[in-house]
């Protein structure tokens, strides 16, 4: 087959391995749900759900900071009976939750997870794009997917044959339509500056010039507000107000069907925070360092990366030691159990710290892959390319985690809007600001002699 022989095996291996990124939103759900519940607890000055545990020998009850609770909830949802109320439209009732969740696996395809990998393989220069689909129309594809995923809520509301669900679905879909306009328009400024729909090009423009948040601060806030509204969480949760609409479009759902909506919401947050990080915070680009510098000093960069990870492990240790000291002074009955559990975390964190420091020192002294230039492109070995991709990926994840926290922060601090206020904000304020921003950007770009 021609199509198989057109690439070397290493290209095929990396291209197929890239499909693993489709599962990133699902992994983020696992991360986000405990983060949200403990975060809510933190803001309301309580503990949050952290009492479930797994019993292990010697260390006692392992609670893993609320992550075990997450596993319990997931198991409960999985094994609950799927139940359809009488009178629902059976086909659409069962299909509807699958739509937003199926889109979850498609959306990560266009996000560039690392810079283009260019390396030398057996005398040939191999180039692999950082996104699964390296298309000219990247961002548009993402918007197309997100507009289709709104059908899930709409069909769910209609198929449930319940007034609450129906009103919730109408509200959700009208809000999605209106805020998608704001989302697209506020995005246009940065597209204009970068001169491309391709997300990799946009990130490269930001790497060579300035980050989007500096070039387009107004558009950044419009985009942030519009994308928070699009996920339909508080303060924009008009679709599921408890006093008026019970739970909105998924009132009649239970078990894993409800779970699919729930997971769809969280993975929407994940995708949107990756999108904001890519468009406005320089995506995979490392702050203040270009990719070329990174590749020339590969060993040092890996050492710095290990140093940062070791620092995080040390910060975790500091937290654990502070908790233990506080706990020892109290006379809670379960304090010895908790201290025994903390012993495990201390061991793990100390091992991680030592391992990271050792790895960093080893990388600094012994890892210096050679780089050469072919046709003006910096071409390194496979090891350099993989190291760069790893650093890029971790930087992107760190940036997106910041925005995930913004979502939780906003949800638990701001009071919710009334429905007409949401529409007023969308159509009369954000849309106009985004339009003016676009015009101003276009004029300035033209005056400064852009394309």
């Amino acid at each position, binding site marked *: 087959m021609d199509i198989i022989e057109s690439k070397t095996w290493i290209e095929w291996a990396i291209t197929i391995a890239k499909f693993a990124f489709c599962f990133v939103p699902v992994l983020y759900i696992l991360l986000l749900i405990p983060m949200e519940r403990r975060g809510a607890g933190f803001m309301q000055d309580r503990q949050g759900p952290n009492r479930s545990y797994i019993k292990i020998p010697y260390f006692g009850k392992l609670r893993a900071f609320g992550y075990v609770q997450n596993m319990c909830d997931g198991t409960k949802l999985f094994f609950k009976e799927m139940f359809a109320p009488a009178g629902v439209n059976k086909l659409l009732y069962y299909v509807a939750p699958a739509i937003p969740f199926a889109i979850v696996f498609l959306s990560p395809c266009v996000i560039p997870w690392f810079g283009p990998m260019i390396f030398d393989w057996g005398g040939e220069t191999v180039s692999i794009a950082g996104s699964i689909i390296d298309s*000219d129309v990247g961002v*548009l594809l993402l918007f*197309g997917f997100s*507009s*289709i995923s709104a059908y899930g809520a709409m069909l769910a509301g209609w198929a449930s044959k319940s007034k609450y669900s129906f009103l919730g*679905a*109408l509200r959700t*879909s009208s809000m999605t*339509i209106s805020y998608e306009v704001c989302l697209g328009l506020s995005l246009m400024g940065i597209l204009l500056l970068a001169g491309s729909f391709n997300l990799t090009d946009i990130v490269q423009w930001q790497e060579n010039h300035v980050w989007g948040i500096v070039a387009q601060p107004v558009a950044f806030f419009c985009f942030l507000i519009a994308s928070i509204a699009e996920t339909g969480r508080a303060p924009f949760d008009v679709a599921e107000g408890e006093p008026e609409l019970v739970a909105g479009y998924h009132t009649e759902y239970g078990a894993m069907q409800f779970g699919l909506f729930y997971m769809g919401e969280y993975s929407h947050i994940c995708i949107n925070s990756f999108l904001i990080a890519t468009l406005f915070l320089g995506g995979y680009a490392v702050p203040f360092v270009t990719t070329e510098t990174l590749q020339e000093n590969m060993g040092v960069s890996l050492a710095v990366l290990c140093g940062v990870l070791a620092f995080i492990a040390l910060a975790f240790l500091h937290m654990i030691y502070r908790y233990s000291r506080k706990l020892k002074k109290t006379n809670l009955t379960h304090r010895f159990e908790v201290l025994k559990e903390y012993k495990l975390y201390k061991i793990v964190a100390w091992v991680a710290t030592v391992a990271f420091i050792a790895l960093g020192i080893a990388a600094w002294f012994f890892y210096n892959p050679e780089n050469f230039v072919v046709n003006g492109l910096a071409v390194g070995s496979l090891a350099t390319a993989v190291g760069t991709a790893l650093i890029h990926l971790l930087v992107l994840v760190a940036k997106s985690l910041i925005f995930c926290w913004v979502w939780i922060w906003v949800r638990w601090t701001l009071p919710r809007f009334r429905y007409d206020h949401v529409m007023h904000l969308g159509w009369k304020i954000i849309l106009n600001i985004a339009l003016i921003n676009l015009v101003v950007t276009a004029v300035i770009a033209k005056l400064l002699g852009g394309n």
Partner: protein
Amino acid sequence: MLALIYFIVLAVIAVGSAVCVLLSRHPLYGALSLVVSMVSLAGIYGLLGSPFLGVVQIMVYAGAIMMLLTFVIMVLNGARDSHTPMFDKVSLFVIPAVIVLAGLVGFALVRSPIAFDAATIRGSVAITSKTLFDVAQTGPGYFVLFEVLGVLLLSAMGAAVLLAKKRLGSVDSEKTEDKH
């Protein structure tokens, strides 16, 4: 070969769901089949080397316009489980007209020399924007046309709003409101 397989799959879905639009007796099912048809059409556009057109098809037609359409069907009580009859007197004229039109289009397509080549790019973002807006290449023709179309759509929207408002405040609508 691979492109041909994709094309056959997408074409079967597109034509099948288009037939479903005609045959479904419930307006919401009709709208949903239209969405499926449009999405698979977008796939065919992508296969023909114009991904930009395909994505715009998904975004504008499947995403925005059909969403509004389903919204209207739901709000205007079309979503009640009342089934409309599949055939009535108008069908006597419509069905022969559709068959004749399909025959004509099929005849024209079979006779015309269209070469299918999936490798060439016909409608990427750069090519589309150059064709539309590059004044040096194509003259101001498309550029002016594009702007005029924009103004036309805007005026149509204004007219629709005005008409709707007039209906709301008119004597007829107030009378019907009183009856309820």
